[in-house]
């Protein structure tokens, strides 16, 4: 079988899973829905491996294959077919997405066990994987947009999975609408590019771009506008400023969903998009600069907000934003391999962190506030170890995977020189923040005096809430519905969860070995054929910068952990003192820099006000009174016959119609 056949198979598996689970939701016994869902994703992963092996058999220059099934919209100058593009970049994404997804499905088998929406959950989750694979395999802009929007829809469905919670439905609609803003950016950007390339095919567009379709080179306004609009799409999907506000709210979804969609895969779609579109972006350096600056700003802002949040899932969500900021910055400055490498390692350790957090939340019977947690180190040894491994990788401590991937992004950024040094500094500042907020979580949740729940668990009794409450608002849950399920799962007591976490822990520790400076360049070499036309790809050079970067990374990571240890373990009261001393700064961080309020004031409220005005005032005064009333008055004044017709008898109107028709007809007949 060829690589494209394998890729089609990888696409077909989760789709088949979705349909089977959706249609058979009532008749599937026990946990079979979970195992079917997991099985299809494992098969998709196997197909992805097949595609990888097939692709590696070919000469590097011939590792880009396309295949199409049928004409989707081939008319009036556009040429969209249902086609996929299989090259090292898409196979890389295919492997990461299907691999991590398979593990998260496995974790969910236990985690969602007592939930009444079990089959629905796995059907949505399989649909998400299908959409994500469609996104990374799409061979033309239109199909890319379809996959892009499908992942948004899957994300919406899963955020508001517990749809009895008004917080969940509100978060879902917010995520969807902001993602539609991104879709609009993507569509409009596509128009600008299509205007010059005259094709929607990805490779065709890139060929046209290198053949000089964009007259004027890097100053071509349409190309810059197109790339910036593509960036709008990337920002919305990848939660970059100012389109990020949906991501923290998206934590309303079940924790495995946060791990899969809002940490490991979907939110990294923007990174993939920029890497995929590099032939266009490299011709529009202005757009690249926009991406790099926004990425850097996001990594810093999200890092500071992560310091002040108390909901453990929100802290990890802001951390995700911040890490994607690194990736976006990386692929925008040309560090494609490094950005994608970080995408992969981040998928491992962030999914692991979320899984461990899920187990912790299970032990707290749904409670998510760090303020109520503490001392779980002994009660949850496996969870603690996993969280620690994930945390060390996130903080960039050698030899964990995050250390290598993040430092490589910053290395390439530094190599670019000039004003990129500012990005370099911001990147390392962010690294310090990352270590601090990560270990703030570790120390607050697992160290210190054990809380009641932890003590109970140590004696072998998992805690159960008497009245299940919505962690966001504290209002009692609708228990008759059966979701969220009445029982909470913890990793220590569920083998599938432990298996998934153990595999991810191995990845979080060891994945860095794929690409160690001066030792091996697996990722670099593998992806090189996809970036053959790039002028920025893998410019390794100055050793002093490499040494500086690695030592800075190590030092800042360890320093961050030391600060966290000092503040939250050695002197437990000092956090409050710092808060009191820097009140305005704390307020800024805890309100996430007031982005929500800003968007509400500038966009949401004016739009609603306009709608209200139109509904209540304009409709009545202008449309009804002036237009209808005016017309009626005119007719009343003009004709006695019509005045009689106001009685409401329809037959008069019919008569009037006939009369009018005849009259006008006669007029023109007499004229001729």
């Amino acid at each position, binding site marked *: 079988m060829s690589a494209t056949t394998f890729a089609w198979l990888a696409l077909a598996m989760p789709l088949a899973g979705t349909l089977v689970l959706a249609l058979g939701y009532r008749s599937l016994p026990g946990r079979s829905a979970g195992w079917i869902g997991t099985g299809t994703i494992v098969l998709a992963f196997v197909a992805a491996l097949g595609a990888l092996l097939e692709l590696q058999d070919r000469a590097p220059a011939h590792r880009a294959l396309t295949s199409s099934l049928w004409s*989707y919209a081939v008319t009036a100058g556009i040429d969209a077919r249902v086609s996929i593009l299989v090259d090292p970049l898409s196979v890389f994404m295919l492997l990461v997405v299907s691999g991590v997804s398979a593990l998260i499905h496995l974790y969910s088998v236990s985690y969602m066990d007592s939930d009444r929406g079990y089959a629905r959950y796995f059907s949505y989750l399989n649909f998400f994987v299908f959409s994500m694979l469609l996104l990374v395999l799409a061979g033309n802009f239109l199909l890319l947009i379809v996959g892009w929007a499908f992942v948004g*829809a899957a994300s919406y469905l899963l955020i508001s999975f517990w749809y*009895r919670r008004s917080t969940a439905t509100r978060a879902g609609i917010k995520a969807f609408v902001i993602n*539609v803003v991104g879709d609009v950016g993507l569509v409009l950007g596509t128009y600008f590019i299509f205007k010059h390339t005259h094709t929607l095919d990805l490779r065709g567009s890139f060929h046209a771009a290198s053949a000089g379709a964009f007259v004027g080179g890097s100053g071509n306004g349409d190309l810059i506008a197109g790339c910036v609009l593509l960036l709008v799409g990337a920002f919305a999907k990848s939660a970059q400023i100012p389109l990020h506000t949906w991501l923290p709210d998206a934590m309303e979804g079940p924790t495995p969903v946060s791990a899969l969609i809002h940490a490991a895969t979907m939110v990294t779609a923007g990174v993939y998009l920029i890497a995929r579109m590099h032939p266009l972006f490299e011709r529009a350096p202005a757009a690249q600069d926009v991406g790099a600056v926004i990425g850097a700003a996001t990594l810093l802002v999200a890092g500071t907000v992560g310091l002040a949040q108390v909901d453990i899932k929100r802290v990890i969500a802001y951390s995700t934003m911040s890490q994607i900021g690194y990736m976006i910055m990386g692929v925008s400055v040309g560090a494609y391999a490094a950005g994608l490498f970080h995408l992969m390692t981040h998928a491992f350790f962030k999914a692991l962190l979320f899984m461990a957090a899920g187990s912790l939340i299970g032990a707290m019977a749904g409670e998510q506030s760090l303020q109520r947690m503490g001392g779980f180190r002994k009660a949850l040894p496996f969870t603690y170890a996993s969280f620690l491994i994930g945390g060390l990788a996130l903080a960039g401590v050698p030899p964990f995977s995050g250390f290598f991937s993040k430092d490589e992004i910053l290395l390439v950024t530094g190599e670019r020189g000039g004003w990129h040094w500012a990005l370099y500094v911001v990147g390392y500042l962010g690294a310090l923040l990352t270590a601090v907020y990560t270990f703030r979580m570790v120390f607050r949740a697992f160290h210190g005096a054990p809380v009641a729940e932890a003590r109970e668990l140590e004696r072998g009794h998992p805690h159960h809430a008497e009245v299940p409450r919505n962690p966001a608002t504290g209002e009692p849950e609708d228990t008759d519905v059966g979701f969220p399920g009445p029982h909470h799962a913890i990793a220590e007591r569920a083998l599938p969860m432990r298996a998934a976490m153990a595999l991810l822990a191995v990845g979080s520790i060891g994945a860095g070995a794929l690409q160690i400076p001066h030792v091996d360049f697996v990722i670099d070499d593998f992806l090189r054929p996809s970036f053959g036309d790039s002028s920025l790809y893998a410019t390794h050079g100055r050793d002093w910068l490499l040494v500086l970067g690695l030592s800075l990374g190590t030092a800042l990571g360890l320093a961050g952990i030391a600060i966290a240890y000092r503040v939250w373990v050695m002197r437990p009261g000092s956090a409050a003192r710092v808060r009191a001393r820097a009140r305005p700064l704390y307020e800024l961080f805890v309100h996430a820099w007031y982005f929500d309020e800003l968007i509400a004031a500038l966009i949401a409220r004016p739009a609603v006000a306009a709608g209200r005005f139109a509904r209540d005032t304009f409709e009545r005064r202008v449309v009804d009174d002036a237009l209808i009333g005016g017309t009626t008055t005119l007719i009343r004044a003009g004709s006695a016959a019509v005045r009689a017709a106001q009685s409401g008898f*329809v037959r008069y*109107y019919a008569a009037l119609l006939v009369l*009018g028709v005849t009259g006008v007809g006669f007029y*023109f007949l007499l004229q001729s």
Partner: protein
Amino acid sequence: MPPLSILIWLPAITGLLAASLSWRPWRAHIPPASPPPDWWGQVSPAARARSVRDPGQRLSGRLALAGSLATLALAIGYITEYKGPRAGLQHVTDVTWIGELGIHYKLAISGLNVFLVGMTALLFAAATLAANLRSWERPRLFYFQFMLAESAVLGAFLAQDLALFVAFFDLMLVPFYFLIGGWGREPGRVRATLKLVIYTLVGSLLMLAAAIATGVLAARHTGGHITFVLSSLQATPLGRGSQEWIFLFFAAAFLVKMPAFPLHGWMPDGYRAMPIEVLMVFSGVLAKVGAYGFLAIVLPLYPQAAVHFQTLMLLLALASILYGSAVAFTQTDARLIAGYSSVAQLGFITLGIFSLNAQGAQGALLQMLNHGLVVAPLLFIVALLAQRSGGSEDVREMGGIAFRAPVLAALFLLVALATLAMPGSANFVGEFLILLGVFNAKLAIAAVAFAGVVMASFYALRLLIGAMHNRVGPGVRSREISLLDGAVLVPILAVVGLLSLYPQLALHRSEGSVKQAITPLRAPLSPPGPYAARGGCPPYAAQPGSGLRCRALVLGRRR
């Protein structure tokens, strides 16, 4: 395939049959089977059982259903037989109707109407089935009006003669006046009928005047016989001055029908008053006749005026999009959310048509189809929701219906996603083409129109969530969708799914005809028409005091 006349008149004939066969004058003293329900929820099972026992009620409904299904079968036959992207008319019926006036009874299938005919037949069949699920006061008359409406709509789509088109267009409105006036919901039934009559009457009269003027003026230019056949009229374009005012008359009639801002004043009352089965076809099909009229009649016959008024029409369409979306997302009446979203959607269609290029027009045609196929299920779902929330159609009184009705929730989700033109649906392909066309014509307008896309996602999801999710509303009694209700929805949604997977099906067949429809727009401003020999100026324009200036000549010189 049988001639098109059979397709057109089959519904009306079965309607007539239904009315006469089930007429039992000897049972006339028996009171109506059940009190007229104000809305869906208020037909009690007992009343329904009674109505089933009433043979008049049952027979007329079943006959009408059979007729609409037969029509659907014929329409599907025409679609499968329609040949490729080749432009030109197929299955032509051409008979002289009123010889003295040059009016022909000319019907034909083209790429523009082949799928619209199919959609009309499908929606009428679904709506007739839905109507069969409840009992009606005066059922014979109801079904007769209903089927007559189908005939008239099919006639309007298939007519290839301007006068015939106008005749069908007006005929189509008459049964709807009666359907609203006779079977509409209180309160506001009379007011709604009145508004609808006034609006559409004004529109119809303007259109009639414009149509007659077109025939007469064209005949005067050629000096030959008067004719209303579209192809002949297209061969003899009018002078630019006449084109402009005739264009405005037609535009007024079609914009009222769609409805477009600010001529939508009849819509809120009309939507509230109409029985949902009537509204399904009214919103799904009748609105498209207006859009179809622009594409099939106005652009080919009055190309210069279309170019002249392009910006005006685009701005009107843009206003419809923004205004419709803005009101839709503050409305709480589920029907009116659908209604105002239609204003916005029809705005997109107008936008596509008046981008005056192939992409926009193709997108608009596809979107006409999509909108009809989506809005009818949406309205039907609104009725199903009202059944479950104690008869209220207010979103604030719904909520939590999804839990006991997962299938209904899933169907509603699909409809909502298609309504907001989710990529992956055919609606998105339509919108993509429309906005691409506008992008190529007027970039700024396309950029602003995208705001409508974002707003659509908000109001569609707001409706979905408000009805299905959150806590259970006060009067809500949720239950799963019944098999027969499903039989109304599922066939339409199957077609939506098919078109979403393979929009090329429709795009491919319409391509040739769409190109042909917009070809005149590419012609130079003063085309070498029949009076080119007179310097591009019709004879009367040279005479002093004729009242009409020779704009074509003036403009031709200026350029």
